[in-house]
Structures are given as structure tokens and as C-alpha cells.
């Protein structure tokens, strides 16, 4: 690659030559709309091929540009504000479904395909990608993978780490790389797809993803079980987990979350879904009723559309936290959150101890609460990640929280190996990486 002079103008010309003028935006008004945490990029690149992504990244590495890849732009407030920003790489034009093999239950998509668009394609064959993070219909699969987004369905189907079979990505220096396989079972070489899930695009720009699909169950029904105290909800959760039930969702809702979804008021509730053949759904529903009664729970069947309301529960809350606790400690963790953040909406995948907290509170209060929660969860190995918050708050607190020294040392070494010049998302990831 020939080096170009580092001036904005020269780099801009080089980018235009690589991408064509329709894929490069230098208009100040448009660029302002693509600012990340208040940093306005010098360029917006909108490649529509993997090759174009590769050429942009090669140039970015040569010129030491800081690049932030972008999907739908919904989750750019995850992580610390970027240390530098020169170029936003808008991946939304890579939006083709490349290869769908319904008889194999696999699909290969470009990273800019939206989750909702994929669902529409797969639906008629009664197949789906079992991934349901809050309000994710317009989010791209690349963005969902880079941020390791997850929702209620993970209790049955796993998270993205379990669904991603293969991945094509562009390394920071522009080398197009493939990891994994297009078949449902493969252990050939290192499990590179696992490394890319949740890496926030720091090791490569995700371009193509091969995903495992699942059949849509014949019938799905949801029971909402409300309790007068969180301890009873915890008891019910333990009973569900220690049973042969095969729930597809086991979500915890505190009082605020119940209000947000238009559900009956209670101290705590669990929403349990069963997806199967009709007779098996009914039989498991009866068992759920029995287990609920033991904890004095009130059982109602959730109305049609209840999960859609649930998906919107975080709304436009200025602050969202992802709290990782143990399944055995959900009630205690929720109570602790409520004590520290008055009025917080707490909900999430109780079976794996993954909770979303949304709240409108002053920055000082949030900072104090996050510090307190982290200290509270440290003995059991829990974490608090600030997934959405105003820039000023994310500048004054580590949004990721502490990571074990040994693990973070390895992470730093991996990053220095693949992105020594810190081209991709500098400063945004854990430990200031």
C-alpha cells in the first residue's frame, strides 16, 4: 500500500479513490449526525463490500486513523467514549442474506442485516434466530454480535457465543480473515468466532456471520406469576430450575418493570414461556401452576403481545446497566439495586442471573450506586456494566468495571498483537483498551 500524506485532504482523496464518492461522506452536517459521544468523525465511510471494508482498514492502519464501526447506531453508548475518532465505518449497506440453508438450519448474512429483516425472511419456513435483546428489531447482526447482545431466549437457546458458527472479519490492518465453519459442528483450529463475540469490534470489523437457526415451536404460551415478596419469586425460580421443565424464557420483573409492561402490580414476578407441541405446553403450564402455588404466587396467562411490550421496557431511560449475578442471588441483587436506585426498572434473564436495570437518576447517584453494586457483587464474581449513560457519566466511571488482572493482561496482549496502533475503537473497551 502506498502511503499518502496524512492531511485530511490527502486521506480524504485516498478514501474517495478507494470507495467511490457515493460511499464517502465529508459533509459536516451529515458527519455531525454520526458523532460518537460528542466526537465528530472526519469521514463517514459506507462500504457495500467486504473488499471495500478491507481497503478502508488498510488505509486507516497506514495513516493511524481511529475507526468506529457502526451498525444501526443503537448501542454506540456502550463502553467508554472513544479516545480518538477519525472515521465512522457504517456497515449498514452490507445487508444481504448470503446463504440460507433451511434444511441445515444455518444462515450466512452480511453484518449489516437487521435482526427483524432476517426474521421476516426465515418466518415462512418456521425457522428463527433465537435472539431477543430489548428493542432489537432494527439492530444489525454485526452490532448484536460485537456487543454480545442477549435476551430472554438465551435460557433455552444460548447466547450469541452458542449461535455463531463462522465469521468473516477484517483485521485492523485490512486483512480479510475467516474463523469457524459453516456447519453446525466443527473443532478445526481455535474457536475464533468466540473471540469475536462481545469484542466490540476491537479485533476486527465483522463482515459476514454464519449462524445456527432453530425451528419455531408449534405453540408458545407465557405465564406471568406475581409474588408479594421477592423471596417468594426466588423460591419459585429455584423450583423451576430444579425441574425437568424446558422453559424458553424465565424473566424476572420488579414492580417498576411490571408497571412498564402494563402488568398487574406486585413486588416481583417471573414470566415463564414454554414453547413446544400443544399438549406439552399445556402439561408444563400445569406444573408451573403447581410450583407457583407453593410460593403463594398468582398465575395469569400473559396476553398476546405481552413480549412486545416487554421488549420496549427499557424505553428511552437515560441510564441502563447490565448486572451479572448468580441465579441463586437474583432476589438479593434486585433488592440491592432498588435500594440504591429508587424507582429503577429491573428485569432480565433470571435463570442465568443477567439483569437489565433502567433508571433516570442523577449522575452522582448512579456513580455511587454502581460502585456500591460492584462491591456487593464482587464476592460472588458478579459484574455491573454501564450499557447506556450520558457521556459525562461514562467519562467519570469505568463503564465495564474491573476485570481480573490475569484475564485483562491476556486481553491487553491479544489486542496489542492484532491492533498495535489502536485503530479500531480505541479506548472504548474494558480496561481502557
Amino acid at each position, binding site marked *: 500500500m502506498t502511503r499518502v500524506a496524512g492531511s485530511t485532504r490527502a486521506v480524504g482523496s485516498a478514501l474517495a479513490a478507494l470507495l467511490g464518492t457515493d460511499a464517502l461522506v465529508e459533509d459536516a452536517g451529515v458527519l455531525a449526525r454520526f458523532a460518537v459521544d460528542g466526537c465528530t468523525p472526519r469521514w463517514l465511510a459506507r462500504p457495500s463490500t467486504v473488499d471495500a471494508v478491507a481497503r478502508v482498514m488498510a488505509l486507516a492502519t497506514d495513516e493511524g486513523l481511529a475507526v468506529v464501526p457502526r451498525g444501526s447506531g443503537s448501542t454506540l453508548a456502550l463502553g467508554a467514549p472513544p479516545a480518538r475518532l477519525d472515521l465512522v465505518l457504517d456497515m449498514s449497506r452490507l445487508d444481504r442474506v448470503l446463504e440460507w440453508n433451511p434444511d441445515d438450519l444455518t444462515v450466512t448474512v452480511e453484518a449489516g442485516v437487521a435482526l427483524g429483516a432476517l426474521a421476516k425472511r426465515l418466518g415462512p419456513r418456521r425457522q428463527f434466530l433465537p435472539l431477543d435483546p430489548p428493542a432489537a428489531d432494527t439492530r444489525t447482526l454485526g452490532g448484536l454480535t460485537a456487543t454480545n447482545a442477549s435476551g430472554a431466549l438465551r435460557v433455552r437457546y444460548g447466547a450469541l457465543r452458542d449461535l455463531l458458527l463462522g465469521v468473516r472479519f477484517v483485521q485492523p490492518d485490512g486483512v480479510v480473515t*475467516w474463523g469457524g465453519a459453516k456447519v453446525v459442528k466443527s473443532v478445526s483450529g*481455535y474457536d475464533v468466532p468466540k*473471540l469475536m463475540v462481545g469484542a466490540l469490534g476491537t479485533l476486527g470489523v465483522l463482515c459476514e456471520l454464519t449462524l445456527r437457526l432453530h425451528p419455531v415451536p408449534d405453540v408458545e404460551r407465557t405465564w406471568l406469576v406475581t409474588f408479594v415478596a421477592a423471596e417468594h419469586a426466588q423460591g419459585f425460580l429455584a423450583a423451576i430450575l430444579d425441574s425437568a421443565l424446558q422453559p424458553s424464557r424465565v424473566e424476572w420483573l420488579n414492580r417498576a418493570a411490571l408497571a412498564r409492561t402494563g402488568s398487574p402490580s406486585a413486588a416481583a414476578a417471573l414470566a415463564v414461556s414454554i414453547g413446544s407441541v400443544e399438549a406439552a405446553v399445556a402439561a408444563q403450564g400445569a406444573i408451573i401452576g403447581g410450583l407457583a402455588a407453593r410460593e403463594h404466587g398468582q398465575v395469569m396467562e400473559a396476553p398476546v403481545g405481552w413480549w412486545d411490550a416487554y421488549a420496549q421496557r427499557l424505553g428511552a431511560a437515560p441510564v441502563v446497566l447490565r448486572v451479572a449475578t448468580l441465579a441463586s442471588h437474583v432476589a438479593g441483587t434486585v433488592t440491592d439495586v432498588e435500594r440504591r436506585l429508587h424507582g429503577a426498572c429491573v428485569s432480565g434473564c433470571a435463570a442465568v*442471573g443477567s439483569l437489565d436495570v433502567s433508571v433516570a437518576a442523577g449522575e452522582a447517584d448512579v456513580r455511587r450506586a454502581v460502585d456500591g453494586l460492584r462491591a456487593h457483587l464482587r464476592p460472588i464474581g458478579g459484574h455491573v456494566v454501564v450499557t447506556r449513560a450520558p457521556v459525562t457519566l461514562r467519562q467519570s466511571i469505568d463503564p465495564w468495571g474491573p476485570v481480573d488482572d490475569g484475564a485483562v493482561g491476556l486481553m491487553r496482549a491479544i489486542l496489542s498483537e492484532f491492533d498495535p496502533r489502536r485503530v479500531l475503537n480505541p479506548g472504548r473497551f474494558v480496561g481502557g483498551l
Partner: protein
Amino acid sequence: MLNSQLLGELERIVGRDGLITSPEGRLTYECDMHTFYKGQPDAVVLPASREHVVEIVRACRQARVPIVPRGSGTGLIGGAMAPRGGVMVGMNRMNRILDVDLANRCATVEPGLINLWLSRAVAGRGWFFAPDPSSQMVSSIGGNVSTNAGGPHCLKYGITTNHVLGLEIVTGHGTLVTLGGKVWDRPGYDLVGTAVGAEGTFGLVTAVTVRLVHLPDAVKTVLALFSDIESASEAVSAIIADGIVPAALEMLDDVVIKAIEEGIGAGYPKDAGAVLLIELDGPRAEVEVQAERVAALCRARQALDVRVARDETERALLWKGRKEAAGAIGRVAPNFLLQDAVVPRSKLPDIMRAMRGISERHGVIFANVFHAGDGNLHPLICYDDQNPGELERAVAANEELLHACIALGGSVTGEHGVGVDKATKLPLQYGDADLNFMFRLRRVFDPDGVMNPGKILPSHPACGEGFRPERPALPAGTWV
């Protein structure tokens, strides 16, 4: 040969009874179950604690001596063997269950623990450890983690990596690192997912936190008989395409059926051209409905008969036959090569037709017993090493089959791992850039190249081990 200083150091660490240096003692450790590949370690050490392991790695690293981990030695890839000599670390003494936490559906164990022992320890309370390689009564969980082992029921439950929450490893730096743990989510790279399946090239595993799964409400095992393997393959594809994911979906062909029946007699019909062993588990009503759908799909694909195991004894016998199939093949031929390639499961009929052609062209017998539901082939390619030319023909047939699988969009290994056996085959599936990425990843964990060298990645003629790094290595210890 190791120098006496290192040997003295190893003896100080593990004690005299934990160090094996005699030629006859080391002979036991010269290969795994892929006896084709042999390589004796210069010494074998048997640590009893994570502290031992840390000290062993540090001593070997300092002496620049290869370190090769070994569990039960039941691998099938030339993994737990020492192609370049060095020190083999047998994890068998570290076999305790450290913690069982059913409220959080997990257990923490030492790597030498036998897979089945964990399931036995929690079965009484209604739980099990889902990954079930056929070797599970002897293979160790550390070995399962290192190879990312699969098994028949992985079709529904996922392979080992889907069941590992946390790892404690000693990296090639000699540093003890805790990755992941009981809490499912944590910020940063998924180093647990990255390290599972690394076959000891990132580090030695000293503890594993695994998920436990609740035993299902009901289990139904269906045996479907077909006149030939192609029609059985069509049935497999039809079941998956219909949206049914059984707990297990296994195929056995006529050669294997005959061998099993002449041996332990598991109750497979001797005259069938192929059988499908289909297990459905879960809520009783679901199992009933799915069993009927599966039976109908098999009949529509010309199944000669569809039977359901009447009781647990009959079910256990069918599975015993399946799990001991490879051993039974000894009745057919004294030697065999075992292939572990994968094809997209909709391509099973194609690969089975291709296999028939390959078999005829090379004049070798393929005995098929495999995880049909996820397209993971396990043909046993039979030969007799006393007959000149047979091995060469078997090797050529194996090679041709592997290429055919890749041409259909498959993988060179589905669950056994890479070892030395498949290291040279990775370029069929990956380009130089992809392999280079893996090489660099490995170097982060093992800058000196002492961790199980010669395994997983192919050698590059220009630099001996792995692909040539693009940039000089980082100075050791920059991040420690």
C-alpha cells in the same frame, strides 16, 4: 533427553512417585488412541495441585522444553503424545470434584476427573453433565475441554464449549489465570470460549467450572431400519428439515451392525442395511408427539421397520452397542483409520453416495457409525497392516473422502480435534490469513512455543513451527 537439573527440579516439585523416566514407564505414554502417531516424552510428571502445575510450566519454560498435557489418553488425533519429546503432564491425580452448586446449575472440577463420574455424582439429585463422548466412562473432563469434545447427545445439548463457564489455566508464561466462573456474563473477550479446544497449546487446565443440566422428564429411543445407508441419510435430512432436533440421531451401517451383533449383541437387526438410533428427550408429551413424527418421516423414506425401545434395559443396550462400535470393528479388520469430518447435514445422501464410489475405487471397506444429526461422519476405514498396500489404499481413500467433505462445505474435524493428525489438513479449510490469525493468537498465550508444539497448526516450511509471524514477538512478560 532432559538435563539433570530439570529432572531434579521436576522431582522436587512432584516427588519421586510423581515422576516417570524409565523407558518402560514412558512407553505407556507414547501415543493416544490414534496409535498411528507415536512420540515418547522424555519424562512424565503427575502433579497433584495447581501449584505443581505452575512450577512445572515455569521450569520447562525456562529450559525451553516442550510441555504436553495428557488426561486419560483416549483422544483420537495424536494429541496426548510427544512428537518432540519433552515433559508430559498427566493430570490423572487431579481428579477431585471441588464444588457442586445445583442452585446455579454448575460444578467445579479438577481436569483429571472422569466425565461419567461427574454425572454419577449428581444423578441422584436429578442432574447430569451433558457432553457425552463415547469414551465418557474413561475420558477426563480436562481432555474433553482441551479437545472441545462432542458426543451423540450434543445434537440437542451442544458440545463441551457450550457447557464450560470457567477455566483456571496455567499459560505458557507460567502464570495461573482464572477465566470466567459461575457468573455467566462478564466484560471483555470471551477467553473461556477461546481457550476451550486449544488442546493444551494456550496452557494447562487446572480447574473447570461446567454447567450441569437437569435430567429430562422422559426419554424415548427409536430404532429405524433401512435397506441402505442412502435412504437412512434421506431420513436424517428429512427429520432436521422438518424442524425436529432430537437429543441424538445416530447412524450405523451394515458392517457396524454385524460387528456389534457378533460381539455384545445389542439387539440391532443383523439384516438391515443401515439403522438410525434416534433419541428424543424432554417433556413427556413432546417426546410422544415427536417420536410419532419421526417414525412417520422414516416410513415415508422407505424405512423397513420402526421400533421403540420398550424399557430402560433395552435402551441401554442399544446405546452400549453404539458406544462400543469402534471396538467391535476389530472383528471386521485388525486396523482402521478413523475419520471425523463434517458435512452440512442436508448433504449426507451426497457424501454417502460419494463414499460408496471411493470405497470401490480404492478397494477398502468403510464401516459407518456416526452422528448423523449434525453431519459429523465417523467412517472407520478398515485395513490389515499385514497385507502389503492395504494401509496405503486406506490412507488414499481417507484423503479423498476428506476432500469430498470439504467440497460439500464441511469441516475437517467435528469433535475429535486437530492434534498432529489434522494439523496438515487445516489449510483445506482455512487460508493463510486465517491460519496466521490463529498462530498469532497462540503466541499471545505461549510466546516461547513450549506448549504442546506440533499440535493444531500446520508447520510452515520457512520457519518450522507455525506460520511466520508478521512482526517480531513481543518481549516476554510485557503484560504479566
